[in-house]
């Protein structure tokens, strides 16, 4: 049975979470907290590592924005154990990416307290800034006014992984009158200990949660399937695909933004793709003409080959593309097939092996 606590919100759910996080710090249940944080200079919340409980005032744990996928930042704090407890407040896709990074030995989660929340999606950075110019507390209005929730990114709308997997604590918003109260659910023993230590009284999980989750799931799944079929159309043959990526500048922003592309240096920046003049000239001679930089298609397909099993669908690649190429749509669409093939859900479970590390011991000819 999962442990569940109800927290009053008094029309300010962010404040409620802030005080929980603050208490965790001051009660020394954790040593530091990584949480979105509004700096004095911009309204866009940036992942920030907080040690002083007083600094928690500026935290924006539930902000419907993510300037980038913060899994990388979390991983850098958790690169190896330091003997300190680190709580990280992340969106679902960020937690999933973090778990993938842990499988790739980019971080160790033993000392981490993963805090997730039911994700209602994020708003693109530029729209968020625009909105922020008009409105002081976007977060509260975002949860109070469901029409604002339609302004989330297309990829968020198509995301069926809105409930955190494997989090120690989940901030439950689904099915809750968020302006009155929200839930705090422990998914692990560590999470339970925190709820107990904070002295929160526990209750049965309210029924509304599952119902709300199912209806959201249905909506998201429909959007997802639509996205898949529209995107498939855009890439379904090499001609269409070339058109879709024709404006790619080989800036590699997409790969830099990708939380699971963990390479220190992308192979496309190494000597492997730094062709000798002989190669380029011979290529031109054989094909008549070669666009430079070369290997644009190769780049996108290789990235799929490397990471599609681990794509968490956070959509950051699309967000950063200067040429508005629907990178995320393509990734999600293709990845869905690969993940289905391997029966693999990235970030589902840290003990689940990366598909390429497990294989049948014996098999008969070919196929």
């Amino acid at each position, binding site marked *: 049975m999962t442990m569940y606590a109800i927290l009053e919100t008094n029309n300010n759910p962010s404040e409620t979470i802030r005080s929980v996080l603050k208490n965790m710090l001051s009660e020394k249940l954790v040593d530091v907290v990584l949480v979105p944080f509004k700096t004095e200079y911009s309204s866009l919340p940036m992942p920030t590592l907080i040690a002083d409980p007083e600094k928690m005032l500026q935290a924006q744990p539930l902000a419907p924005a993510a300037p980038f996928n913060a899994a990388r930042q979390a991983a850098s704090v958790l690169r190896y154990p330091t003997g300190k407890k680190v709580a990280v407040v992340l969106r679902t896709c960020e937690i999933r990416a973090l778990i993938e990074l842990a499988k790739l030995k980019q971080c160790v989660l033993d000392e981490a307290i993963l805090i997730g929340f039911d994700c209602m999606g994020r708003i693109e950075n530029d729209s968020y800034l625009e909105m922020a110019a008009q409105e002081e507390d976007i977060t509260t209005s975002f949860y109070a006014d469901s029409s604002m929730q339609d302004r989330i990114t297309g990829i968020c709308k198509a995301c069926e992984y809105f409930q955190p997997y494997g989090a120690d604590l989940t901030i439950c918003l689904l099915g809750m009158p968020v302006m009155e109260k929200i839930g705090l659910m422990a998914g692990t023993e560590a999470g339970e200990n925190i709820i107990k230590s904070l002295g929160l009284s526990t209750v049965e999980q309210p029924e509304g949660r599952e119902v709300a989750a199912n209806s959201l799931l249905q909506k998201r799944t429909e959007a997802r399937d639509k996205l898949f079929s529209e995107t*498939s159309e855009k*890439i*379904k*043959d*090499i*001609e*269409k*695909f*070339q058109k879709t*990526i*024709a404006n*790619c500048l080989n800036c590699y922003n997409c790969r830099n933004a990708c939380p699971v592309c963990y390479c220190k240096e992308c*192979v496309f920046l190494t000597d492997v793709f730094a062709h000798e003049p002989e190669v380029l000239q011979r290529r031109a001679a054989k*094909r008549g*003409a070669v*666009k430079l930089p070369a290997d*644009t*298609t*190769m780049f996108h*397909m*290789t990235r*799929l*080959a*490397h990471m*599609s*099993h681990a794509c968490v669908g956070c959509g950051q690649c699309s967000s950063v593309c200067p040429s508005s190429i629907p990178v995320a749509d393509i990734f999600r*669409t*293709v990845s869905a*097939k*690969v993940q289905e*093939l*391997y029966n693999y859900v990235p970030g589902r479970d840290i003990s689940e092996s990366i*598909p*390429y590390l*497990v*294989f*049948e*011991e*014996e*098999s*008969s*000819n*070919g*196929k």
Partner: protein
Amino acid sequence: MSDEFEPKIIALVCNWCTYTAADLAGTSRLAYSANVRIIRLMCTGMIDPKYILKALLDGADGVFIGGCHPGDCHYINGNLKAKKRISGISKIVEQFGFDPERLRLRWIGASEGPEFQRNMNEFFESIKALGSTPVRDRMIL
């Protein structure tokens, strides 16, 4: 020369078994298409997904991958690892309109020269039936 479609095939084969079988087919004068280009690798486990993508994007009509029978791999199980990886690649390229039939993985042992010939011929025919790669005559970015 006639205009008939002659598929261009890249065969990525492991050094220990399938390459040996190819060589045996050669010395036993077992003929197959001259448009098959054999690339010897030490093991199918060495096959990076990039190689397959490269071949397809550079205009190969078919990519044949040949390794040792399960259990025979000189490096214990490179072939099984390859199989897993290739199944993923095949799924990916399929989304972009490459018929998965253009990618074929088979186990051919060192003494199976006739098997190698048969496989080449069968693959050649099936590619021929599929027709030319969608990449041909296109500018691939």
